[in-house]
């Protein structure tokens, strides 16, 4: 296998295993950008993004994801498996059923 192909395969593997992802619910509050130990997070439109080649999931630096430990928005940062690191209700303390009820109530007006 040529070297370039090995690099590419490693990068793909790494991307799929060792990177978090910021999704559209991000509110662009900047909080995660300065706390990333790998400088993997950058400002972008319509929201901040993670460079998967740089993200190390904080391994070797911190025992927990730094970005997801300061992010105020539930569900905005996913782990390598695509799961929300901060699931609904985990940050605000609002039970998801209660949130759904309140939103349904507001929309019915």
């Amino acid at each position, binding site marked *: 296998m040529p070297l370039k192909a090995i690099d590419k395969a490693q990068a793909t593997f790494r991307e799929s295993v060792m990177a978090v992802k910021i999704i559209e619910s991000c509110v662009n*509050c900047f*909080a995660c950008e300065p706390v990333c130990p790998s400088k993997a997070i950058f400002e972008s439109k319509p929201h901040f993004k993670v460079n998967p080649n740089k993200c190390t999931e904080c391994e070797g630096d911190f025992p*927990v994801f730094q970005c997801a430990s300061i992010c105020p928005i539930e569900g905005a940062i996913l782990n390598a498996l695509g799961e929300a690191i901060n699931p609904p209700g985990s*940050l*605000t303390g*609002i039970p998801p059923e209660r949130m759904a009820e309140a939103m349904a*109530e507001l929309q019915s007006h």
Partner: protein
Amino acid sequence: MQLPVLNEAPAAKSGCSSSSCGTNENQMDALPDSIREKVQNHPCYSEDAHHYFARMHVAVAPACNIQCHYCNRKYDCSNESRPGVVSELLTPDQAVKKTMAVAATIPQMTVLGIAGPGDPLANPERTFETFRRLSEEAPDIKLCVSTNGLALPDAVEELSKHNIDHVTITINCVDPEIGAKIYPWIFWNNKRIKGKKAAKILIDQQQKGLEMLIAKGILVKVNSVMIPGINDQHLAEVSRVVKSKGAFLHNVMPLIAEAEHGTFFGVMGQREPTPDELQDLQDACSGDMNMMRHCRQCRADAVGLLGEDRGDEFTIDKIEEMEIDYQAAMEKRKVIHQAIQEEMDSKRLEKAHKAEQFKTEPKLATRPVLMAVATAGQGLINVHFGHAKEFLIYEASPEGVRFISHRKADQYCGGDSTCGDGESVLQQTVRALAGCEAVLCSKVGYEPWELLENAGIMPNGEHAMEPIEEAVMAVYKEMAAAGKLAAKPEALRAQG
């Protein structure tokens, strides 16, 4: 007969050299001269100054290091006016340009604040870059900053280097048990920490930061959000603690909790305090501390005089097109500020004189009464009832007249026009004046007249263009003479 204006009476004569005199309700006059000198042209620190001087906030600080149950970082509705909300995030460079443009266009401007939309000290580079440049390029503008306090101890040294003599710390509690019900988490030492442990760290940092600022000679104001059933009983203790450490002013604000804001308190149905509850708490705290009663809880990008927002005139696009002569603008400001100061000083002396006169006269035996006033500033009754966006609430009693609070007339949600919930803006306004027994304005139409009367609020348009306190006194005396003020006050307050 002249009644005294309690919140204008000079404190020095009664021997209250410090801020501890509970009978004097004006935060400015109860202050030592050295502090009053510093804050007399700061619109956020007195009801008096805010009618003359303007302030602005620049939204350069988006990140936050804690979560509060009354805050939600997701929403920006341009109709919404509350802390933590902004329309346009600025870079430090844009913030400097905006400040210079506003200060040139609104020469009454004296103060530039950074208040968010996150925590200014959780964005130290952006915040301090803005302060550093402004203290060089606009040296006549006072700078201030508000913070939740978590990162404050580390920032005190840097704060003391700039032109900053006022810092506001939001302190909602000094007890971690209570704090755990207000703050779900903090980000601290590379970890998200929850519960009582988080609240304790935050409280310790706030108190340490407060002490360090005082030691540096920087003025500290404390903001607290009154949350019924959570910290309402506790805030008098907070007042006592922060005053003992040297904070010069305590601003107790009512919780804003609407389900549509998506905040924990809003969604979970936590109620807001009533105006009566807020007033009672402010009165309870005032024995220990100078209280602030006119705070409008403005947005983190507000521009202009308190209660007005001219932010739309100064968007990034519009600023880029403005041509400004900074030097000429600064000279113009100096002249205007001087003239305003002279006018304020002469009014202050006049009122103090009237208060002195009153002391020699016998007191009326009445209960206290609340009145609403429609004003656009200059201390005059000069707004038509239907045009008032807010009302100032005054209390008249045998002790004199004092400013109590303001109440909004145009809620951001306009009732029938947008929501179809059946209640008109006029009905909302009348409801907002609950507890008042008269409303003084320059004119009032037939329809509101009837609604007001039915609600037990006497409309009065006879004092147009008169000074507020004198008009309130005159109406108070009429009501007393008509025997309307002999009833038990508690029964009436309960209705409100």
